[in-house]
């Protein structure tokens, strides 16, 4: 596999750079040009890019492993996440209109403006940086482990980490969101085609689709119910699904994408395209996990399901390499989007607030400069493989839930206040960290569930005893008027 693997990695690198450079053409000099592709992306590219950003290496490694271990609960968990797009359908037009009207570059900036509080912007941006840099480093670690495993050591861990960091950094830096969106779109196609082919060959190896379903019902019927073999107890299902249901609002690398479409109809195409992509990709991932269960029933560790399936005789070696590129694509497309979003937040929400007179050109320069710094931090974390980083990465989906009540309240509740927003982010954020570090699940509930409950209660309670910002009424009336004009609920 050695030479073909190196050739495939070289071809992927070359094609990615070609796409990134081509996308760079026409790049303007403003902050929105670089970080938001000047709010001019079309629906199809946006849909593919949104899909590639949302779906990381977790799908083909983690979710397939969860299916192998716990059965159909993994399907429910992932489809509950997909149905969370209802939040994007509802809040997407609000984000898009507000950003267009007020020139927002980042979701934290939007929150700060709505609540008329620089502290809200700062805290939301810092929370995103704190949790998403470790999340990025875990993506890096995933790529490096996978390359090492599949190449049987020919690509050492450190080389994998360095290569993936270089690509994510370069593709984000070359043309900002233009290059990220187009390389994402290219990578989304690699993800879908490669995983689809693997599943096709795996199911053929089992004896066809009828044999696949028959095998599941005859030999693994417990895997077709929940809690099934035991992993998907209700508390586990709830603890996993709840943070992911709110993902499109809580994670800035995806919520920022709601600012980007060139029109409302492009936003609609993006959401619809993502729904179709997500449904197909989820079914492929679950079939992948079930196929591994049928073909390789005795693995000591479910995390080995994907590497072992790819190394098995039913998958042609060329396809195994393509599938590996699909998984690498999923990870890198998530990483470069996170890098770009965090850089925009640093420039717009932290630097610009600390240096109020800084020009847009200066903010852009800082934003570009910070991309390699954040990449470097993720690189160092992934090289040292610290427990602290793993805990922060694991807690990222739960911890970022604390941004949800303030975000929802920004558009739905006129009484929401800056102090309410701050309390709802800070106190539950600390609570999640304590629960995660202490491995605590009070009343059997996972940290994400506590994050959402405590954050909502604090937001409402503190808002009720403090004064709402003076411009809240005007802000909401204006957005609602624009929504009504466009027949948006």
């Amino acid at each position, binding site marked *: 596999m050695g030479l073909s693997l190196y050739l495939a990695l070289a071809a992927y690198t070359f094609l990615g750079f070609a796409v990134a450079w081509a996308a760079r053409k026409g790049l303007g000099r403003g902050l929105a040009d670089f970080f938001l592709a000047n709010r001019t992306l079309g629906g199809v590219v946006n849909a593919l890019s949104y899909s590639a950003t949302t779906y990381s290496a977790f799908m083909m490694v983690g979710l397939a492993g969860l299916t192998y271990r716990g059965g*159909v*609960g993994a*399907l*429910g968990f992932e*489809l*509950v996440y*997909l*149905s969370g*797009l*209802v939040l994007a*359908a*509802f809040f997407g*037009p609000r984000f898009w209109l507000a950003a267009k*009207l*007020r*020139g*927002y570059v980042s979701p934290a*900036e939007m929150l*700060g*403006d709505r609540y*008329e509080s*620089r502290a809200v912007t700062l805290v939301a941006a810092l929370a995103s940086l704190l949790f998403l840099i470790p999340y990025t480093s875990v993506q890096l670690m995933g790529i490096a482990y996978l390359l090492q495993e599949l190449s049987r050591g020919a690509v050492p861990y450190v080389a994998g980490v360095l290569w993936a960091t270089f690509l994510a950094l370069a593709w984000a830096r070359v043309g900002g969101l233009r290059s990220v969106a187009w390389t994402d779109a290219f990578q989304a196609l690699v993800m879908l085609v490669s995983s689809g082919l693997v599943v096709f060959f795996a199911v053929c190896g089992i004896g066809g689709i009828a044999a696949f*379903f028959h095998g*599941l*019902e005859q030999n693994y*019927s*417990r895997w*077709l*119910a*929940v*809690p*099934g073999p035991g992993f998907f107890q*209700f508390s586990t*299902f*709830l603890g996993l*699904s709840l943070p992911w*249901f709110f993902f499109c609002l809580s994670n800035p690398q995806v919520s920022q994408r709601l600012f980007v479409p060139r*029109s*409302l*109809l492009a936003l*609609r195409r993006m*959401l*619809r395209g993502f*729904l*179709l992509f997500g*449904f197909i990709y*989820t*079914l492929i991932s679950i079939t992948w996990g079930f196929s591994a269960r049928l073909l390789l029933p005795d693995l000591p560790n479910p995390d080995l399901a994907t590497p072992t399936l790819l190394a098995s005789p039913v998958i042609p070696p060329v396809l195994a390499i393509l599938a590996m590129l699909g998984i690498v694509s999923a990870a890198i497309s998530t990483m470069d989007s996170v890098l770009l979003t965090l850089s925009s937040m640093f420039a717009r929400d932290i630097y610009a607030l600390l240096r109020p007179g800084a020009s847009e050109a200066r903010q852009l320069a800082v934003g570009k400069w910070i991309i390699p710094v954040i990449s470097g931090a993720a690189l160092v974390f992934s090289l040292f493989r610290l427990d602290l980083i793993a805990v922060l990465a694991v807690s990222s989906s739960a911890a970022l839930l604390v941004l949800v009540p303030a975000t929802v309240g920004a558009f739905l509740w006129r009484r929401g206040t800056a102090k309410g927003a701050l309390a709802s982010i800070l106190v539950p954020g600390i609570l999640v960290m304590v629960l995660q570090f202490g491995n605590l699940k009070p009343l059997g509930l996972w940290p994400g569930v506590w994050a959402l409950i405590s954050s909502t209660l604090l937001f409402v309670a503190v808002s009720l005893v403090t004064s709402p910002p003076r*411009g809240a009424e*005007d802000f909401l*009336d*204006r957005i*609602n*008027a624009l929504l*009504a004009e*466009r*027949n*948006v*609920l």
Partner: protein
Amino acid sequence: MAPREPALSANFLVAMRSHTRSHKIKMALWLAWFLALEVAAFLVPYTLLRNVERLWGAFLFWNVFAVLAIISLFLLTRGWRE
């Protein structure tokens, strides 16, 4: 922070409020539907289908749930205009 635009006129706001009343009813109906769908996605496989170890159990249920959610979102966004 972005500068504030001039305030909206009182007449415009009155017109807006009557317009948004029908929107609020539609919104409440959609909200109730999605809430029911999500609650079902969490509860049905753990209650009614708990011991159904067949393809027509939780596997089929979650697929139907996803298709319904996707169709609903297509319908919810159908009337959007520029």
